[in-house]
């Protein structure tokens, strides 16, 4: 608890100081809200429009989390397939790279045209963005099994599935989890970018749409409030995934285990 306080203390103090300075600056310099709202105005907007914004956040979060789940299943599943067949890996990996390096904002309009359901299109966009780190992480991990350990499996005549289950998958876990942590943030980014690309077609329900709508009205406090909620959601996703990673690894992996003093 003491350690947690010490860890959170420094950024909390810095953040509070910046907010106070910001509030003081906009008040003293009399900056109007439609140029730069102060933290108090943003907080007021959050209080006033909290219900709407929170409902929109849930819509965006639902897409991001569904995309993360799809990315985990698709990325890890494809990586396991790659581990079974080098030919398949060689054949498919370049296309996964192409999909990753092409900006999602450029592909999103096409997906929105071809996919009849907007929700499905948003989900596909966010999944495309999130899936690559899981694929790369898991593929790296599955190939990272120690050669002596593979020899050990061969010595005891382990079957293919036993090598996968008892050696390759656990060895891949830290790499997979690192990929998932990156994918969590990217799924949210992907969902927001896709909502921006969809514009009104998204049904005006997601948080990205609330930001667009507020910008049309020059309602900057509401824009900032929506942005704050997005950042908060991103941090929450990262924190939860980090916690899951720690729970799974802390007993045996150096990346998560505490060093003895």
């Amino acid at each position, binding site marked *: 608890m003491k350690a947690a306080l010490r860890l959170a203390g420094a950024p909390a103090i810095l953040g509070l100081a910046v907010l106070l300075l910001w509030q003081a600056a906009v008040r003293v310099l009399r900056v109007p809200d439609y140029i730069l709202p102060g933290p108090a105005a943003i907080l007021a907007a959050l209080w006033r429009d909290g219900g709407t914004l929170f409902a929109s956040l849930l819509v965006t979060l639902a897409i991001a989390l569904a995309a993360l789940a799809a990315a985990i299943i698709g990325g890890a599943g494809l990586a396991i397939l790659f581990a079974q067949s080098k030919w398949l890996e060689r054949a498919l990996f370049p296309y996964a790279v192409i999909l990753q390096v092409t900006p999602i904002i450029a592909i999103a309009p096409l997906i929105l045209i071809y996919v009849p359901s907007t929700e499905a299109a948003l989900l596909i966009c966010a999944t495309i963005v999130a899936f690559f780190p899981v694929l790369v992480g898991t593929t790296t991990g599955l190939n990272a099994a120690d050669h002596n*350990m593979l*020899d*050990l499996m*061969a*010595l*005891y005549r382990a079957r293919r599935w036993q090598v996968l289950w008892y050696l390759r998958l656990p060895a891949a876990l830290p790499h997979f989890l690192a990929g998932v942590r990156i994918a969590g943030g990217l799924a949210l980014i992907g969902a927001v970018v896709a909502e921006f690309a969809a514009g009104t077609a998204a049904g005006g329900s997601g948080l990205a749409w609330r930001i667009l709508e507020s910008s049309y009205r020059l309602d900057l406090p509401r824009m900032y409030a929506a942005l704050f909620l997005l950042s908060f959601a991103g941090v929450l996703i990262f924190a939860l995934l980090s916690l899951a990673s720690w729970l799974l690894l802390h007993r045996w992996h150096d990346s998560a285990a505490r060093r003895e003093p």
Partner: protein
Amino acid sequence: MTAAGAAALVRLEGVGKRFDNGTVALAGLDLALHRGEFLSILGPSGCGKTTALRLIAGLAQPSAGRVAWAAPPAQGGAREALGFVFQEPTLLPWRTARGNVALPLILAGAGRAEARARAQAALASVGLESACGMFSRQLSGGMRMRVSIARALVTRPALLLMDEPFAALDEITRERLNADLLRLWHERALSVAFVTHSVYESVFLSSRVVVMARGPGRVAAEIAVPAPYPRTESFRTSSVYAQTCQRVSAALRRAMGEGA
């Protein structure tokens, strides 16, 4: 317990090994391991000691010659049940000591309860019953190697292959493990092929020392250790020990092309 004249458990007959990169690790290697014998294989780096062990274990296939087992292939395959101790402990870090030792049994289809009980017994035989629930990172180097030995023994093998298992350990731990290994070899009537860089270790442990030369790997000398078992620490100060060490050292120097 020496095995002079005993039947060969496994025999390398004119074995050659050429790797894909063109390196010839072994050429015309003839080597027999007798039932109940403690054989040490000594030689300079790159002389093919590890390759020879891997060939016996079936982890690599010879490019020439053959690995002949005493048991006829009809009796459940040509290879005898064997345990292998690598230079590194090679423990799965996500499994506990007991989980690591139980792994060979689980891979062979044993039930969880049976695997657990046998793993616990194997750990007890190396003096680690209290470390059953510990993970690899919580164990010292010597304890990790003991777990590795317990894992190699849990399947009750006839043959134990050991590839410089104690190279990374401090002298005291090494001597303790030497003594424990001799005890286990005796209690379980094992045959052991033990690769080492240490002349002293090879003489202390073995009934016979094979010295290999490199370029390509082959047997340069075979030296019997004329001392009975059980061997205790006092053996290290005996004249037989000193003389045998001198003979093995001289053979090793000749194998390295330095002259006696």
